[in-house]
């Protein structure tokens, strides 16, 4: 059973989407480690190390995702899990910005998959299956 760490990053307390992601991925047979809301980068990384996870799925709904996610890939590398898949989704930036530019910025920050607002977890499942090889 492959492990996926999920949670909501930063000072963000949006819990509903987090529960839906937990439910959906668990039903698909993944070992979901849900660290919940108000989680720091370190919380995600620590949980991924202990659980030997292959994917960290970061949610951010309150517009500060870009600041909260900066340097996360570097911290993964320092922590010995540099190869882990990093996904991010939600309302990850403030206002109505051109998403292709936003996506580019997050890819440069080392994220593997970046999802625009309004995407449900079902639409990311194919990516997860492809990336984790199942």
């Amino acid at each position, binding site marked *: *059973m492959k492990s996926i760490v999920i949670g909501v990053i930063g*000072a*963000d307390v*949006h819990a509903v989407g987090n529960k839906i992601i937990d439910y959906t991925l668990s039903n698909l047979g993944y070992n979901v480690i849900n660290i*919940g809301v108000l*989680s720091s980068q370190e919380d995600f990384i620590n949980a991924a190390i*202990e*659980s030997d996870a292959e994917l960290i799925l970061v949610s951010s709904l309150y517009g500060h995702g870009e600041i909260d996610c900066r340097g996360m890939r570097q911290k993964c590398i320092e922590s010995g899990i540099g190869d882990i898949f990093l996904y991010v989704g939600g309302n990850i930036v403030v206002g109505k910005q051109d998403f292709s530019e936003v996506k580019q910025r997050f890819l440069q920050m080392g994220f593997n998959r970046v999802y625009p607002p309004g995407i449900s977890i079902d639409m990311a499942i194919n990516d997860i299956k492809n990336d984790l090889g199942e």
Partner: protein
Amino acid sequence: MAKYLLIDFGSTFTKLTAVDSEIGDIFASANHFTTVDTDITIGYKNALDHLYKTIGHPVVFDRVVACSSAAGGLKMAAIGLVEELTVEAAKRVCLGAGAKVDLVFSHHLNSSEVELIKTKKIDIILLAGGSDGGNSECVLFNAKMLSNANLGIPIVYGGNKSVQDEIKSIFDQHHVNGHIVDNVMPRINQLNVKQARDKIRDLFLKNIIEAKGIKKIESEIDKVVLPTPEAVLKACELLAKGYMNEPGLGEVVVVDVGGATTDLYSISEPSKRGDVIITGLEEPYAKRTVEGDLGMRYSATGILKALTKEEIMMINLEKGIDIEKEINERNINVGMLPQNQKEELIDRLLAEMCVYKAMNRHAGKMEEIYTPMGMVHHQTGKDLTDIDIVIGTGGVIIKSTDPKQILAKTTNVFRNDFELRPRHPKFFIDSTYSLYAMGLLSEFDPVLALKIMKKHLTQV
């Protein structure tokens, strides 16, 4: 009706407490220097003579049981993977089992860390790492490192259950005294104390007290049953919860300032509020923390390190003393007892600092975070704000002329609202120093132990 003798083989003193179930109370107590370096029975027999003299005649006891923290107590190394997770979980298990955690290691061990286990004369190792089904590479590596080192001490494995079989065969191959228990952190942030703690106690009673020359006392008494700090933790838990029809006092905090360490026990739910978001590793209901750098004598220099230059200057000015000099004197002359009012005042001041700092580390923290959804309260650690009762034990508090001053330092004296310290507790002292004894007694007569404890707590 029965008479019981309850003994604590402490690092400095062997303390005896005699209980009579007919009168439902302690009827005598005595102590003498612990003589574990030569022969532990000598100190015990001397204390017993004292006890008989106080009573006026020898007594036949129906049961004689002891706890021990002699010969360095139970020295443990806690090893895990990530510092905030399995390392912290392993540490809490050791502390809950009444151990002193002398070494803490995370991630892959290196040879100098293994060497430290030898030089620090560790008694038992708790090896954890990985949630169930999680990381296994690190614990396998560490198990091999420890096994190859031929340490000759018991190793308790409480890590990822998926590799229990591999770990067991590594231990077997190297003839290690290895023991497999449930994972101390089976899921992220979930703490699982019981099986590992019971195994540690078991090993303490079977191997460690034998190795330290304490077991020979069992020719004189019935049994050594617990490490002393665990006896105190049991007493605190009983005092809080009550037993059958004998009600407890509700949630309590117990403070024990000693020569080498400051121990804090909190018996309480981690939080009673519904409007906070709690993160981090699960907190135990009965929590013990030990500050090895805060103590009245052996660790007095730790107090100095915890102070800033400005604080030292302020204390010196305010109290008209040279705090650095006083602390160093106490650190060199560990047997020093206060001879005059000034020395007592300084001891009290040091105890206050130990208590303040130890509570700072024991109590949880509350952060107010402004989010686009309004302000939220974010809690880590235990919320002790509603605790009604704070109890002091240990020589410096019991013998102080103003124990309330010391115990008051558990509360929010500096109005730092982020710290979840007790807000308006009542203060008590364990005036007859009987908590350890009642922890022992609770093993076979909890109602009597509870009644005696309630009788002997003195409000200050």
